[in-house]
């Protein structure tokens, strides 16, 4: 049942497991676990790492940003209510709509779903917390600080003003000389850190931290949705992060990635942006659809029909969504065949989406449906989202797109999809899970009128906007002439906007009323059949006093009975072991218990690290590069300070986990959560690097053919650097072998430390000999590629040094080799990236020589 080190050389694990901690009465168990898991009061709240606490904070912060984005929407509607309104001028209006879009997408939608995921996932999966609580907290601080920077810029009147997709050259330093664009590029990237940490956490938590017996095909459907969404984020966000880095480099250091006069191409930004931006839309929709798939079965009183079909459909959506980005670029003059391909592919997503909708309808048909407030909001979701989907299919048709693109028709479409596909389900979800958070049942009085105000107001605003767009009104115009004939429609849209706002105000009042006056209930007010309702409500910090064994699909459970048994400590880990915070990790597919995951206690380190990261961002914003470097060093040092509380200085061997079973602590297991986290981090990192290489090839092959100055790459240095990286990776792997075989890894670690540094020493003269990287995009790409490899080599050396330190500090043994294995993963990736990157550079310099001679290159300069 338990998993040991798989290495055949490994000595047998320590025998005779320690005995199980004593059983406690339910009350004393609750007290002991609360003491172990609780967040300190007062200022100590800032040290919180608990998922229940942080999930709530994410949700509340997201609602605050929703209010800010909504206020901006109202200002936009005031300005557009009539022709030639003298309310604000273009410079303010441009900040309004840019910030409205950016706040809604990056500071409301994504963090809102992250909050729901963080709060609910462990409870749905039967775990006591997420896999990396401190990372949750760090992500939260990055989110809040990044959002604060953006909002502060708005207050100061220097907010981003290039639209939420920030097309260059408009956002370049030539046309936006102020810091407006930098605020977006740096602030949003800062917030994206939290999206990436959440993605890694969700992936690992779903794959590893489940109740024993919950095999992967028994997971609650929402876990599938979140798992797939998190995967999409791992591959969707890196292209945007890379694009932001490149654009910021262009603005700050004049590296011409997007400048057509120097071999760059503004279309590269569009490709990178939409490579992220299209999946983003599904990243927002899928978690909401997951919530819908949890609520409908509860109110239909029937399990979700077509569970497997739905999972396949969601995977299909995820897969397809990465192949659709060009439909945002139909009018940039792309070849005929590509138009047809992307048009058909875009239409195709309608099918897996329809499959989900009909699975929900089928569930209602199979069950005995019951009406309640969440169902009302889900009805709104269905109506609005279906219309958004239908206009989406229309926009996928190329000829129609050529007319409707960049008009208010698209504004209408995107709000139908986002409000229909995200806001309505989230309102339903709020009513559905609020009782879980508060322990008070849902009241209907205000919820129903609030719904009708929002629903009618929304449709009044945006249904008419389809027509405004077809009447020729482009998006992002701050004013329009009366002669255009757009007045009447716009005025009605504005009236609708204010009705919607009143509806939301009523909703907020309702929530306050429910918090204060809701009727208390004991457990499971909706008679749901999933595990999150088996916790006490409101949930204690530890969520479950014991972890259940799951013997059926996780949407066929009886939370009432399970909850009572768990509260008595009947199940796994139903005890307090020295005040440690423990939960179980399982084998991914089968759900067999495998490791005891020991989680970290509350700490201020995530806050401090987030502050240091924020200092880096601010320093970059104000072009204080020395300060930025110091901040980076501080951030790194603080991250290292996270580690001493990880792992142990002595072998423990398998621990009793209750139910007569044992499992080793995670640092003695072969594939603990952190190992998987490293794998997924590297996958995201590789996507970033792949996007860079894609950019290089794109510029060389289809970018404006501006003759490139020669690039000198001394072969001896490149080969030497590649060899050093590979040798470093081999040394890191060898260090693991030595350690596992019970011998000292010191010499191998030293080699793993020195060899990447040697690679850096070889690459630095290559960068130095490159000549001015601002002359041409091909040089700039070469420069960034080399810088990427140097950075990875430096971090590899750092990992080796860390390994040496951990060895000296007594954290390593034949069974405790995790630290070295994480380092070896990084080393391996750095070597692979090194080989790929250096080969790419050689190819690029060859292309640079050959290409200007090739006739008929598309898109030459005018």
């Amino acid at each position, binding site marked *: 049942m338990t998993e040991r080190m798989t290495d055949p050389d490994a000595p047998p694990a320590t025998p005779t497991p320690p005995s199980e901690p004593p059983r406690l009465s339910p009350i004393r168990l609750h007290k002991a676990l609360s003491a172990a898991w609780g967040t300190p009061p007062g200022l100590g709240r800032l040290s919180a790492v608990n998922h229940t606490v942080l999930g709530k904070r994410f949700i509340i912060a997201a609602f605050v940003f929703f209010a800010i984005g909504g206020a901006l929407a109202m200002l936009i509607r005031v300005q557009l209510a009539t022709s030639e309104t003298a309310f604000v001028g273009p410079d303010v209006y441009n900040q309004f709509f840019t910030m409205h879009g950016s706040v809604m997408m990056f500071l409301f939608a994504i963090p809102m779903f992250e909050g729901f995921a963080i709060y609910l996932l462990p409870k749905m999966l039967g775990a006591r917390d997420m896999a990396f609580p401190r990372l949750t907290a760090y992500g939260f601080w990055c989110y809040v600080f990044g959002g604060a920077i953006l909002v502060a810029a708005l207050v100061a009147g220097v907010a981003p003003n290039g639209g939420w997709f920030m097309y260059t050259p408009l956002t370049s330093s030539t046309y936006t000389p102020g810091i407006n664009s930098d605020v977006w590029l740096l602030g949003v990237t800062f917030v994206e850190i939290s999206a990436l940490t959440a993605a890694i956490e969700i992936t690992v938590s779903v794959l590893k931290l489940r109740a024993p017996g919950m095999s992967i095909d028994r997971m609650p459907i929402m876990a599938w949705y979140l798992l797939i969404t998190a995967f999409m984020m791992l591959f969707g966000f890196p292209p945007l992060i890379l694009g932001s880095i490149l654009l910021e480099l262009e603005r700050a250091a004049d590296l011409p990635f997007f400048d057509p006069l120097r071999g760059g191409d503004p279309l590269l930004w569009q490709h990178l942006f939409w490579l992220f931006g299209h999946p983003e839309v599904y990243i927002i929709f899928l978690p909401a659809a997951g919530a819908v798939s949890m609520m409908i079965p509860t109110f239909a009183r029937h399990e979700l029909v077509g569970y497997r079909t739905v999972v396949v459909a969601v995977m299909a959506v995820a897969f397809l969504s990465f192949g659709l980005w060009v439909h945002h670029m139909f009018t940039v003059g792309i070849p005929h065949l590509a138009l047809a391909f992307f048009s058909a592919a875009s*239409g195709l997503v309608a*099918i897996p989406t329809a499959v989900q909708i009909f699975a929900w309808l089928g569930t209602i048909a199979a069950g005995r449906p019951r009406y309640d407030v969440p169902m009302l909001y889900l*009805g709104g979701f269905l109506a609005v989202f*279906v219309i958004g989907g239908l206009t989406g299919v229309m926009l996928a048709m190329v000829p129609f797109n050529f*007319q409707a693109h960049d008009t208010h028709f698209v504004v209408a479409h995107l709000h139908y999809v986002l409000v229909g596909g995200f806001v309505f389900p989230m309102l339903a979800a709020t009513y559905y899970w609020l009782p879980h958070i508060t322990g008070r049942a849902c009241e209907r009085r205000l919820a129903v009128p609030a719904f009708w105000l929002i629903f009618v107001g929304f449709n009044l605003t945006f249904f008419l906007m389809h027509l405004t767009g077809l009447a020729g*009104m482009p998006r992002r115009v701050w004013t329009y002439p009366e002669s255009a004939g757009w007045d*009447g429609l716009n005025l009605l849209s504005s009236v609708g906007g204010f009705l919607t706002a009143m509806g939301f105000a009523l909703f907020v009042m309702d929530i306050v009323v429910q918090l204060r006056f809701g009727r208390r209930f004991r457990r499971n007010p909706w008679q749901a059949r999933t595990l999150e309702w088996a916790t006490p409500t409101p949930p204690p910090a530890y969520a479950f006093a014991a972890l259940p064994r799951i013997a059926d699909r996780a949407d066929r459970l009886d939370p009432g009975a399970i909850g009572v048994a768990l509260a008595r400590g009947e199940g796994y880990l139903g005890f307090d072991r020295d005040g440690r915070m423990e939960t179980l990790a399982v084998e991914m597919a089968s759900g067999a218990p495998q490791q005891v995951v020991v989680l970290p206690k509350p700490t201020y380190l995530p806050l401090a690290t987030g502050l240091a990261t924020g200092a880096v961002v601010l320093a970059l914003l104000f072009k204080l590069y020395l300060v930025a470097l110091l901040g980076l060093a501080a951030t790194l040092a603080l991250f290292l300070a996270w580690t001493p509380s990880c792992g142990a200085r002595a072998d423990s061997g398998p621990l009793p986990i209750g139910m007569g079973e044992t499992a080793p602590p995670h640092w003695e297991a072969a594939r603990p959560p952190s190992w998987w986290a490293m794998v997924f981090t590297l996958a995201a990192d590789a996507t970033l690097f792949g996007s860079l290489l894609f950019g290089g090839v794109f510029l060389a092959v289809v970018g*404006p053919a501006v003759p490139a100055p020669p690039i000198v790459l001394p072969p001896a240095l490149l080969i030497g650097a590649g060899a050093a990286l590979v040798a470093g990776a081999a040394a890191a792997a060898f260090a693991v072998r030595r350690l596992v075989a019970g011998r000292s890894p010191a010499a191998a670690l030293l080699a793993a430390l020195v060899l990447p540094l040697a690679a850096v020493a070889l690459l630095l003269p290559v960068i130095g000999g490159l000549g001015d990287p601002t002359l041409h995009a091909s040089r700039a790409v070469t420069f960034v590629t080399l810088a990427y490899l140097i950075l990875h080599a430096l971090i590899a050396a750092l990992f080796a040094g860390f390994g040496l330190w951990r060895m000296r500090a007594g954290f390593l043994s034949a069974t405790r080799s995790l630290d070295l294995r994480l380092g070896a993963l990084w080393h391996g990736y750095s070597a692979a990236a090194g080989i790929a990157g250096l080969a790419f550079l050689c190819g690029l310099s060859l292309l640079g020589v050959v290409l200007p001679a090739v006739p008929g290159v598309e898109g030459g300069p005018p």
Partner: protein
Amino acid sequence: MALAACGGPYSALAPAGPVAANVALLWWIMAAGATIIFLAVFVALAIVWRRPALLGAAPERRLILWGGLALPGAILLLLLAAAFVLGERLVAAAREDEGAIEVIGRRWEWSFRYPGAAGAVSTGTLHIPAGEDVAFRVISEDVIHAFWIPRLGGKIDAIPGHVTRIRLRADAPGVYGGVCAEFCGTDHAAMFFRVEAHPPERYADVLAGLARETGQ
């Protein structure tokens, strides 16, 4: 109110050329289809809620198969075919630039350069012959703009470092409105232009007049 969208100087639903006419036709087909599909979904919702018995025993699989797979698949195929036929004219942009009017976007105005007319240039007003296909070669001098004459047909972006092409036709002489559709900064909203379609027999004179003006 719905009628408001169908009139107006910038309305894509008041087509004045074959490209725009095809798209308007496509729109009305799609709007009707979408209405039917939307109503069908809500009829389905009413049935599954109130009278699931109408669907026979174990209706879930059939619902998913027909509603999720077969029906949308068939509709999509039809729609793609219709869009292909109706859009052929638009997408088959001129491949060579001979005779194309050069459209130059710059913040915040449009200039037009006419070929073979002794350097005739106009700014803010585009002159085209009516009743003929006109090819455009679109470039930008600064940021991205988009060249759009809603009543004649689809738009195309003006991108620095690129040349994009589009072909449009005005059926009858007259004046049409043009706009910049891609956000280009402060005066994006003011980047309108005027399109004058002249009877073909008078077009040469117009250009000659322009050339004289430009020359001065």
